[in-house]
């Protein structure tokens, strides 16, 4: 693939990320379901990692993490490395252990969302924010409601992959 093809491919993925980000940051928080807002950005990282593999998954995870840290309030930097690492692991797992399909994406999304939830619960316990059961009352619905959006995000990135993904532009 030429440099131009690569730029076109990743610009298209970037454009795909745009509606996901806008929905995640500005639209869905206005309409929480039973007080819970879903997280769509980790799903985007999971979908691209499953479709494109470990290397591209790392790069896209890094970009998504950077967007998350810079465009959302209260960032402390950790998500850039977390999502880059998660992108690498999800890409590798989908290549070797799972398939590059929707079930594979669902498992990876569940993994990254679950890990994020666990980290937040652990942080809550560490700073004594609330007892475990109260932290879980937020983490579990957030995990489930976010996971429910996986098909939509998968369909979007799958459509992009079908047009420009892999080495299709070569």
């Amino acid at each position: 693939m030429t440099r131009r093809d690569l730029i076109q491919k990743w610009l298209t993925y970037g454009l795909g990320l745009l509606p996901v980000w806008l929905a995640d940051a500005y639209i869905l928080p206005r309409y929480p379901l039973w007080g819970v807002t879903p997280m769509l950005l980790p799903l985007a990282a999971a979908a691209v990692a499953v479709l494109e593999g470990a290397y591209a998954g790392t790069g896209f995870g890094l970009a998504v993490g950077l967007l998350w840290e810079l465009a959302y309030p209260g960032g402390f930097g950790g998500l850039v490395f977390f999502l880059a690492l998660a992108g690498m692991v999800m890409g590798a797992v989908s290549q070797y252990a799972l398939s590059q399909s929707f079930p594979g994406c669902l498992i990876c999304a569940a993994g990254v969302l679950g890990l994020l939830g666990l980290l937040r619960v652990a942080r809550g316990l560490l700073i004594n924010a609330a007892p475990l059961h109260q932290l879980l009352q937020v983490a579990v619905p957030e995990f489930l409601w976010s996971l429910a959006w996986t098909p939509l995000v998968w369909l979007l990135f799958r459509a992009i992959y079908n047009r420009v993904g892999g080495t299709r532009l070569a």
Partner: protein
Amino acid sequence: MKDFFRQNGILLLVIALLLSILIGIISYVMGGTADPLTNLVNTVSSPVRGGIAAAADWVEGAYNYVFRYNELEEELNTLRSRVGELEEQVRQGEEASRENEQLRDLLEFQSRRRELTTAPAKVTARSTSNWESTLTLSKGSAHDVQAGDCVITQTGALVGVVSEVGLNWSTVSTVINTDTEIGGIVTRTYSAGVLEGDFALMNEGKLKLNYLPEGAQLVSGDEVLTSGRGDMFPSGLLVGRVEGVFTDPSGQTRYAVVEPSVTLDELIEVFVIQDFEIVE
């Protein structure tokens, strides 16, 4: 995975780690001011955020007009009768104020006054996380908004405190957020305490009034205002009403659960208090 190592995937991870550390250090050092990159991203995305908020507000307005017309009409009638009652109270209050002023003049007391310099701002985004309660406003350092400024509604109810400021945007940590810590006072009993956010209560849209004095006899419905202790925040801002009084698990102290007067989900326009002068 071979591709990952062949294409310098490790280098990407190292870059990600360095970026994480860099963002962490910068946001720690900058405190209430947004770091340059966050500022840039949020400044550039500000028109998009404003546009989406305006469109969503319009759609919600249209939906309410079409599907909740009767409810709105009923609310209008209730508000009309409430305005009548309040106008009568204002008339009585004006008379009392005049009398109070005359008595103060007679006794040569300094008159109480309260001057707030405010700037209006639109709410362009709401909490994106289930773990905190924040709002994003359409005004920032270009409009003299600073971290620590109080934010109120048009009726003077406290919304929260500005926690991060960018060029044309700012983030407000709402009264129910877990980092809230403001002096509060119950108007009926003059019982002072500390208004604090609580994780469990935040998800119910409420907060705590902690460290109540022993023997404070609070009842449900008591009005809670900011006390202004420490001169960080203006006194007399309406926070909410007491919902109930409880003893903490240790049995040592009592606290009140306060229901804020402001409906955070329905806020469209707020006012940032940029300066205040209160003479008690």
